[in-house]
């Protein structure tokens, strides 16, 4: 069943219902109809898969069965077993994602500020800069990550320069290290940080900055007391949009990391599911990941106190 038929079903004549303002009494039901496609979409592509995921996480191995053969069960032990084995990878994922989020904020805030405030009044320049931020999305995620592998390779310029500067020891390297994974994550999700920041900084009233200066505040104080609080919704949205996908990412850790000290939980889920064919453990880890992110994000949003997230 398609979304199109779902759209047409309620109300008989869809054209008439959409084209004419609804009569006063029926306004509520008219609005409710608009929500049908969205609800259906969520049911089919979110609620149902999450249900299947939850069910799978309790499956049990069929005794003497083939590889990857499981039967429906209520085996709650899958959870403690998965956590006992993979807690380091889970913790590491949150650590790497947090580091990448902070790095993306440090890099992304000045970028967003320049685009939104400094380039204000020059729409062509502003447009160009926004396009440049989004441009990486025009190429494949995988290709961009493989490009980083090349950039950070042992014989590359970056490693060469860092060795020359004695930041890295003569035999030091970047690829296949935690640093490479965090750099990759930061790069991958930077636009998700810049765009919400840009959206909120764009509304910054320059007269407030002038007022700050008039009141003898240093530029730094003005930034701390005026600009930063006003852009808080952007900061909260940007950090969430960066942190959440970064925690579950497995492309960066598989391509830029090694097989021991950089393994993230997404990589474990991928390997458990596609290579070991251990579906219940993969499902249990996914559920744990989802719940932990939900708890963390709720706590963060509560603390940040930002109700109107962009």
């Amino acid at each position, binding site marked *: 069943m398609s979304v199109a038929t779902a759209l047409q079903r309620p109300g008989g004549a869809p054209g008439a219902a959409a084209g004419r303002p609804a009569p006063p009494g029926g306004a509520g039901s008219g609005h409710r109809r608009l929500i049908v496609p969205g609800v259906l979409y969520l049911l089919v592509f979110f609620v149902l898969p999450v249900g299947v995921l939850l069910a799978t996480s309790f499956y049990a191995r069929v005794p003497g069965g083939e590889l990857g053969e499981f039967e429906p069960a209520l085996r709650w032990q899958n959870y403690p077993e998965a956590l006992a084995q993979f807690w380091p990878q889970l913790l590491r994922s949150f650590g790497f994602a947090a580091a990448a989020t902070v790095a993306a904020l440090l890099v992304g805030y000045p970028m967003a500020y320049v685009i939104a405030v400094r380039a204000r009044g020059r729409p062509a320049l502003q447009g160009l800069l926004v396009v440049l931020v989004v441009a990486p999305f025009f190429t494949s995620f*995988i290709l961009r990550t493989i490009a980083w592998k090349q950039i950070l*390779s042992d014989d590359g310029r970056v490693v060469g320069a860092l060795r020359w500067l004695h930041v890295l020891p003569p*035999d030091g390297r970047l690829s296949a290290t935690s640093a490479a994974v965090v750099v990759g994550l930061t790069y991958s999700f930077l636009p998700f940080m810049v765009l919400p920041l840009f959206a909120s900084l764009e509304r910054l009233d320059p007269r407030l900055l002038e007022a700050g200066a008039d009141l003898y505040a240093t530029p730094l104080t003005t930034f701390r007391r005026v600009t930063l609080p006003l852009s808080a919704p952007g900061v909260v949205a940007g950090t969430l949009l960066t942190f959440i996908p970064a925690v579950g990412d497995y492309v960066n850790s598989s391509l830029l990391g*090694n097989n021991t000290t950089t393994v993230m939980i997404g990589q474990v889920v991928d390997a458990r599911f596609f*290579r070991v064919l251990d579906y219940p453990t993969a499902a249990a880890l996914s559920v744990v990941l989802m719940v932990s992110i939900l708890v963390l994000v709720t706590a963060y949003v509560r603390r940040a106190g930002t109700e109107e997230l962009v």
Partner: protein
Amino acid sequence: MSSDRRALPGDPRVRELVRQAQGVSRRRFLAGAAGVVGAGALLGACGTAGPTQAGDGGRGDGPLRWANWTQYLDQDEDSTSFPTLVAFEESSGIDVEYYEDIEDNDSFYGKISRQLENGQDVGYDVVTLTDWMAARWIRQQHVAELDRTRIPNAENILPNLAAVDFDDGRRFSLTWQSGFAGIAWNREVIPDGLRSVSDLWDPQYRGRVLVLSEMRDTIGLLMLENGMDPAGSWTTDDWFDALDVVQRNLADGQIRQVRGNSYTQDLASGDAVACIAWSGDITSLNYENDGKFAFAIPDAGGTLWSDNLMVPKASSRRAQAEDLFDYYYDPVVAAEVAAWVNYVTPVQGAQEAMTQIDPELAEDPMIFPTEEILSQVHVFRTLTPAEEERYNGQFLEAIGA
């Protein structure tokens, strides 16, 4: 039939390609580009769509979809097309979609196992899988039985490959290529070369060593190094002793990464200087890198494996696949492929055909192995399903999976 035909016949460029395929033996190629395709497939293969017909092995519509490993079919000089495949399309009128989607056996199987179990189309009509994985597919009845009367050239298969324990009489599979796992190194960094797997653990190569994610090759070589024959009756302890070596060298950073088919990228970029490798890859890689790399079967011995062409049961294009198999079992075509991929060809008569293409290659023991080479290599013995699950699981866990 005619609707399948590509608008190629008569095209002078195609003619040129075919001529090149018959006249030139060594072709340059972009190892990086091939590797990128493989890595993209790593993640892209999850949602392969296709017609879900329960085929009875007829001649269904649409192109023949062939899943293979990277650098495993002859390419032209720009790495943009596959001369023997183009010639096949032209002569047969069958359109072939060639995918370099197999990074390693486990990950490929994992991505399509759900469709296989449900008897659905897996997105490919021909798959190319290593002996032990082919054994699993045949045991689980995921492959279509071939009509050998439609593949007369299959009689050319080498006698030692004609009967294998997982497919007696070759009713379900045909060998694509065979090869050896051994050690490879960068000649510029290691001019004196390596002789044994233990040489990989020399501290001066710390962090610049790779091992393969194929358990039978990596563990097989390590067992041989420990004096155990992976083809013989080894014990669980022997297996775990070999795994310990991998874990120890991963933990202290001697091994940079455990890689599938994409290990050649790391050799080419210089990130790795020594590794466990597959024989033909190094020869191919050398065309691009002026002979910078060397391959050897370790003193303690190497492993021998074969990859097998099979048709998934749900494919509706078995007939076209059989035409393809018949074509590649022609000794002349087999020699052309072998001249580029540098693996052991399974086709009798290819050595004679090779003398026409490149007499030097006809004497290459890595393509036409001598008795001496064959005495140094071992086939990892067939594991029972229970053993396979245990050892594979342990190995994957050790390499961070």
